[in-house]
């Protein structure tokens, strides 16, 4: 132990840790509580929960605060926390049709079955930086609070009729019109668990979907875009049939009674992407569909996922899009490996320098080139 201190390695690390900790805890401004982060940085919290694969707003908020706002780092904190916890129950299967929407849009039709419900979106708001004074902002907040406009409806007290809350899917209408390829399978295979088995190509669809669902949002958006405009791959642009954000009930089997019991709701974003099949050997008179779902409100991710899901299916192993999805979109993998370049590499570098000299020596000795 004394040996370690004598060499200074541990001291340097602890000094760096203390510096981070002191500056973070002792920042020259008000303390931030987890509920403030949940309340005011909703989308960041949702994104972190989705990429961590852990639904717990308060823990996500604590992670974001500890990571000083570095969302990938926050995801890492949550994922490694998960590694310490035994898994003692699996939830029952939830039918996505049970989703109670608080937002739902159908770009494919002007008047689809069910509502076009914009909900909480800034899609159509001019991106103008609000430079009003802090006082004015707080006064407005108080006014709104007194009008009770900021109170989101509690999920346990839904309102509106069934068709408003749980609208029929556009997909069902298209199926009735016989416009969809039917890929529904009759068997009910166990879903692939990416946290217990590494997903490698060729993988099942559930492996691809869960990998994308936990993927880093930026990575998935980039994966989508590079297949639109990049040098390799070609991704056909879909028409969105459903973009939904809402609550899904979660049930587990009670360990004593053996009956399913609801243990709460999770919020998810769900997307169905309608694909115009235009390949030579595809069903040109029908559409196909790609699916995306992720924890929290994260439409960019769910849309990219749905489009990549159908793209991957249509690719059918011809290109390496599946490998790209499975292997390159995890935020912990990519950023961890990138940052590992900061570690000492002087043993490998010494070996490289030795080979440079060996090549020169070989040339000097008149060997080829």
């Amino acid at each position, binding site marked *: 132990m004394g040996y370690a201190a004598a060499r200074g390695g541990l001291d340097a690390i602890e000094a760096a840790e203390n510096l981070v900790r002191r500056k973070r805890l002792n920042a020259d401004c008000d303390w931030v509580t987890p509920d403030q982060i949940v309340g005011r940085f909703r989308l960041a919290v949702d994104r972190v929960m989705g990429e961590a694969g852990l639904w717990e707003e308060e823990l996500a908020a604590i992670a974001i605060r500890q990571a000083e706002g570095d969302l990938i780092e926050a995801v890492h904190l949550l994922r490694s926390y998960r590694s310490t916890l035994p898994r003692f129950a699996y939830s029952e299967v939830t039918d996505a049709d049970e989703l109670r929407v608080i937002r739902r849009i159908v770009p494919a039709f002007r008047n689809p079955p069910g509502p076009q419900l914009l909900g909480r979106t800034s899609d159509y708001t001019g991106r103008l930086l609000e430079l009003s004074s802090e006082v004015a902002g707080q006064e407005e907040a108080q006014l709104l609070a007194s009008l009770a406009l900021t109170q989101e409806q509690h999920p346990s007290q839904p309102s509106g009729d069934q068709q408003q809350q749980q609208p029929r899917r556009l997909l069902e209408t298209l199926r009735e019109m016989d416009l969809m390829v039917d890929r529904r399978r009759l068997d009910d295979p166990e879903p692939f668990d990416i946290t217990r088995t590494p997903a490698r*190509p060729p993988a099942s669809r559930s492996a691809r979907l869960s990998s994308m669902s936990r993927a880093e949002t930026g990575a998935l958006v980039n994966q989508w875009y590079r297949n639109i405009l990049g040098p390799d791959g070609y991704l056909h642009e879909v028409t969105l049939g459903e973009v939904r954000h809402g609550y899904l009930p979660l049930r587990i089997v009670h*360990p004593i009674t053996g009956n399913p019991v609801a243990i709460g709701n999770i919020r998810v974003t769900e997307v169905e992407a309608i694909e115009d099949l235009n390949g030579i050997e595809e069903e040109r008179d029908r559409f196909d569909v790609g699916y995306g779902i992720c924890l929290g409100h994260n439409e960019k991710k769910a849309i990219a996922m749905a489009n990549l899901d159908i793209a991957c299916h249509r690719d059918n192993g011809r290109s390496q899009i599946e490998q790209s999805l499975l292997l390159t979109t995890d935020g912990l993998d990519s950023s961890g490996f990138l940052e590992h370049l900061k570690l000492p590499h002087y043993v490998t570098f010494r070996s490289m320098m030795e080979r440079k000299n060996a090549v020169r020596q070989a040339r000097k000795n008149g060997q080829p*080139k």
Partner: protein
Amino acid sequence: MTSLLNDLIDNNESEQFGILDEYSKREIRRAVLTAVAVPGYQVPFGSREMPVARGWGSGGLQITLAVIGHNDVIKVIDQGDDQGVNAVNLRRLIVQSTKVSETTTAAKSSIVQSRHRIPEDGLDQRHILVLQVPVPEPLRGVERDMRELARMHAEADYSKMWVSLYEDKVRNGVITQTTGYPCLVNDRYVIATTPIPRWDIPKLDHSPFLTLFGAGREKRIYAVPPFTKVEPLTFEDVPFEVEKTEGATCSQCGSNSSFLVEIPGAQSRWVCSDTDWCERNLEGNL
């Protein structure tokens, strides 16, 4: 499930040993056993997220924490140095979460976790060497498609690798592969030797100790069991070459028989990369 819940209640009463929950450790041990049974084969496992980033030894750490027991003595090195920053960090995590004792001398340890080096001396039948692996796939330089890579390993089709080595030799006069030199294990599987220098490759061949390779990010574990043939890929008339610099000796202990790293300057100096070995050599305690 009731009994499972009871198990967990029991578990929670005792302090958690080694970060991972017991089910995860069991899963990793099973992968390790498979790896030992099939030398050189890359066994997939459900790599957990660790308190260190992927690429920073998360695979090695998982193996160490899965195989370690209360009586083990741990040595952790990075580049051969016990005081490298990441070695210090990993050792601290291991020791804090398991309360095992630590050492810098390989012979006094029972488990050595290492990045990029095999200690110069001291490892025998009692030891497990855990190597942190950034890239477990030896063929990635010659093939990108994982489906094809799986086929090549399954059929022991290493022709692309041989062609690549041949082209290297023809173009450059020497084989320029530096660290992580590809080796054939037990006459069957080609492995990536983490990136340990070529200097360390002969130590793997018929070694008395068990070597476990952990790639956390790529979710692979493989092994070289004790007394297993490890043969660097080369041609009959092209001898395998380890790193060597004429006239270089350690500026601290004077050794010219250890793996040396350069300290650049107007007059370059060399020092042993294995800092513990160097100190013992200096003290005459080898």
